[in-house]
């Protein structure tokens, strides 16, 4: 993309070139070191128990870790797909229709963006906890805050606005003539959605889904506030580190969590084109 500037660098006189290098190079190196060093330390730390590198094998052999990893992935996948389904439908509706109060509604929809995970967990308890709104209205049966459902809803609450905005931004860019072309060719609405709209949104959906998944995999505040009975990976890492002082295992679990998420982000990026998937 930026070939011409590289060429420019080639023809600047030495003073200017040195000025540029003086500015940029050290900072680039510093940035790299700052980002890579902690990671290297983390990977090293994971080998510093008696088990050595075999600690990764130990994760696979310990049912508690395995089931936690599985649970975390499952909840994250569920949240991702739910958020995609709800946001796509609502997003398409919002983009396709103008009505009074639409911009106010949009502002409300983006409000949850301002709340951290802790507050979201707290909201879920206010709604679905023992003294929660739902339990007060329908007593005795509706305490869901501390179950998988509560966690799921908390994560979903956190994800929907982010996915929604990505979907709406992508939907606004679809050439309206595409739908009109399908209409003149006799396509009914559901075929237009399937054949035109969803394919056009595909890369935005992949990108938004990847971000939702990564966020859910790493969510800590919500899970911690809910003090849920189900283990999620970030909480196990916290427990191993703070309570059990098992630094090597905490490091190893962190590396696994990072790898799973990173791999997914990379895959999503390769499907949806460059930096889209990395926005969040």
């Amino acid at each position, binding site marked *: 993309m930026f070939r011409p500037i590289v060429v420019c660098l080639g023809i600047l006189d030495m003073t200017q070139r040195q000025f540029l290098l003086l500015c940029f190079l050290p900072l680039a190196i510093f940035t790299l070191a700052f980002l890579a060093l902690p990671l290297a330390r983390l990977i090293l730390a994971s080998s510093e128990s008696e088990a050595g590198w075999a600690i990764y094998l130990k994760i696979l052999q310990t049912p508690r870790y395995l089931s936690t990893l599985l649970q975390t992935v499952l909840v994250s996948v569920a949240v991702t797909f739910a958020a995609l389904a709800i946001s796509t439908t609502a997003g398409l509706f919002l983009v396709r229709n103008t009505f009074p109060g639409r911009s106010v509604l949009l502002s409300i929809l983006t409000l949850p963006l301002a709340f951290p995970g802790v507050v979201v967990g707290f909201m879920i308890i206010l709604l679905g906890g023992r003294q929660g709104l739902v339990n007060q209205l329908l007593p005795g049966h509706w305490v869901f805050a501390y179950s998988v459902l509560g966690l799921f809803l908390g994560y979903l609450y956190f994800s929907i606005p982010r996915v929604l905005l990505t979907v709406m931004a992508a939907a606004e860019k679809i050439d309206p003539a595409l739908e009109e072309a399908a209409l*003149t060719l006799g396509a009914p609405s559901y075929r237009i959605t399937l054949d035109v709209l969803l394919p056009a949104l595909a890369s935005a959906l992949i990108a938004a889904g990847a971000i939702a998944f990564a966020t859910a995999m790493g969510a800590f505040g919500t899970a911690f506030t809910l003090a849920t009975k189900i283990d999620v990976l970030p909480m196990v890492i916290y427990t191993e580190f703070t309570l059990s002082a098992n630094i090597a295992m905490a490091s190893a679990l962190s590396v696994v969590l990072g790898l799973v998420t990173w791999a997914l982000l990379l895959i999503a990026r390769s499907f949806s084109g460059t930096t889209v998937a990395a926005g969040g």
Partner: protein
Amino acid sequence: MTLTLRNIAKTFAGGTRALLPTDLEINKGEIVSLLGPSGCGKSTLLRIIAGLETADPGAAIHFDGEDVTAQPVESRKVGMVFQSYALFPNMSVRGNIAYGLKMQKLPKSEIKARVDEVVTLCQLEKYVSQPIASLSGGQRQRVALARAFAPRPRLLLLDEPLSALDAALRTQLRDELAQLLRNFGITAIFVTHDQNEAMAIADRVAVMSHGKVAQIGTPEALYRNPDTAFVARFVGDAQPLVGRIEGNMLYLQGGKLPLSRAAEGHQAFVRAEDIRLEPRGPLCAKVEAVTFLGAHYRIALTGAAKETLFALYGGLNAPSPGDTVRLAIAPQSILTLPVDKEVA
């Protein structure tokens, strides 16, 4: 198919009148162009015919006598080529062309046969399995045409089908498009803002201005006998000869010219190709600038009329800037038209 439009008007939500009540009759197999500057209502008219927009109440659209005014797009059976081509990027060329046939739920073998037929007609054999993204502008245009034509529509509508192409390609593809439309043998309406495109492709041209049809006729009729100054200027770039008309004489700054008829109260126009440099011509002018255009020179002349006049000169030895020359214009080449109220 014969198309009859009666009382088609369009007022947008804000109150803007995009189209004033318009009547139009298009014969079977005819290719008609809607020509006009941007904002003249030509695209709105096309979209109303397609069913993509609704006309104001009171309109009537008939396809071969059948009233389709209330029919939705998908049952009108019109093919449409969009300005952006609007090809489905997630399908191959074949997938795009077959889409309308699939929507008609035709058997697979018939879809294949009909796609192959249209592909041959549009010379797309080499590209059938390619993705849309790999096609050039001209190929995309052919695919859009093939997709619109494959379901055998009653009417083909084209919205500025050449404006997405770059200038060099446009002239070449203009002829190709004209040829394809003739081969299809289909009634077609296409919208353009380029007079050359309209004249080269259409059997009849409807020149539109400010939401209404200013004149409709064959390219020759519009060029030779424009009804209004707007049509004369827009089709063939007629230049105003600002002066005084007395009886059948036109008095200009640089001399007087005979007209073919008495035209007092009218405006006189002339086209660049009709101004001749003649040593004994009745009009005196000064050469401002000379531009070589290949087949001829274009000469900017002052002093003959109030505004600068352009003349085309086909000879080898053009005059030089600063020269004084004499001009002649044949009386039948001077268009005398009613004074236009709208300045276009």
